[in-house]
């Protein structure tokens, strides 16, 4: 994050930015359903669509926090419902370790959230986002792992490609 952006975080009307990794087959469709059903939820999330929750390397989550995300949400299919049969079982083990580990190091447990949302659970998705945003707002802006950069991230890697 560039300095000006970090200073903005101290502003009283600060709104958290939350990166949401959603699995293509369940949670992304669940978010879609929430949209189609006109279910309102806070606009603080930035969705990254991934093929499966098992696709998420823990480094993505840590990197998102480093790049200035105030929270990270990971959501996939319910155990047993994975499109790739066992992707979320493997993911569950990784996330169980990561969640404990980040908390062990001293990162607030509200920063990183894991959940299961199926394609038919639009309402659950709405509730989940509300809860996550509420949790992150309560602990305030992320500062612990955030990197202060002189340039914007997009400039350093040469665009979005």
């Amino acid at each position: 994050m560039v300095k000006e952006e970090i200073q903005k975080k101290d502003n009283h009307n600060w709104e958290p930015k939350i990166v949401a990794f959603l699995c293509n087959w369940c949670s992304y469709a669940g978010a879609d359903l929430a949209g189609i059903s006109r279910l309102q939820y806070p606009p603080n999330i930035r969705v990254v669509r991934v093929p499966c929750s098992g696709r998420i390397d823990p480094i993505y989550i840590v990197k998102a926090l480093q790049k200035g995300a105030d929270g990270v949400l990971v959501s996939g299919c319910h155990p047993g419902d994975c499109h790739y049969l066992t992707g979320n079982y493997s993911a569950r083990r990784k996330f169980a370790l990561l969640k404990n580990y980040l908390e062990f190091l001293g990162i607030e447990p509200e920063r990183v959230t894991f959940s299961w949302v199926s394609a038919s659970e639009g309402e659950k998705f709405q509730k989940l986002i509300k809860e996550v945003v509420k949790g992150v707002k309560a602990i305030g802006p992320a500062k612990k792992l955030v990197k202060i950069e002189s340039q914007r991230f997009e400039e350093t890697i040469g665009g979005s490609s």
Partner: protein
Amino acid sequence: MNHIEKILREEAKRLFEEKKIDMLIGFEQGTLPLTATPLFITKSEDVERLVWNPACSVNLSKYLHGILHWHRESQTRLKPEQRKKKVIGIVANGCTTRSIIVHQQENQYSKDDILIVGVPCIGVIDIKKVQKRVGDEEIIDGSFKDEKIIVKTSKRTEELPLEEFLSDSCVTCICKNPVISDVTVGEPVEQASDNNNEFLTVEEFLKKSHDERWEYFKKQVEKCIRCYACRNACPLCYCKDCFIEQTKPKWVGTTDDISDTMLFHITRAFHTAGRCVDCGACALACPVGVDIRRFLKKLNKDCLELFHHRAGMDLEKKSPLSTYDTNDPQNFITEP
């Protein structure tokens, strides 16, 4: 020369003469007192250089992996009938054999590629602790006798008890004897099957508040000079392209910003999750004394408690992150 060394040399000589091994990885006397450096011998005449004492602190399976990998690469361009098979012997104590098991679980090499010469281990010393004890004086000479370290400095000769200067990982060791071995040297030593103090550092740390823990982590990481000695000493860090050096995408920035160093430590620790055998090689290799083991131990503890897995104890068992159980605990999942 101690008793084990004598048998070790005899065994090594026999293995070379019977043409059971093409190379033996062991230790020889280091150039500095109270040190030992890895030794790679291919001839039976060289076995006299082999030593085995508490200064042998490097985890040799790192080299085993490297040599076997390098040999396999060298054979890929040859015709199948010209290819040579090589068997590498390795002098291994408890934690080294555990690392070898982890390598085999990850299909890095097969059982036939190696020959394990198992030796019992009474622990390895942390030379930094000895240096701290003698203060500014230079250690001129040192040797081991029974369970004592005899240190000779420019001013005096001192006899130090070995157990006070053991590496931190050896204090809570539960695996002093080799887990697997083809040839065994010496008698197995007594070992605790379960050490209650094993995760004491983790439990104590967890009693602190989030901010205190973060401060401690930050203080430790601030010391780090990013020499990557911990990665280079770790037998598990064998990836051809480590995430540190990857540039597309560039995970770890090449800045002096502390968050980059933190990212390195968090990710490297996570990459050893369920695989770390707690040999302490990373902590011994660290030139600035970062408390790396405390952060690795937490993952070991979780793997044991959540998935009932201790790395490198059973060749048949899969590493916890490469398998799953439908009844795995999921109390960390948010259900709105």
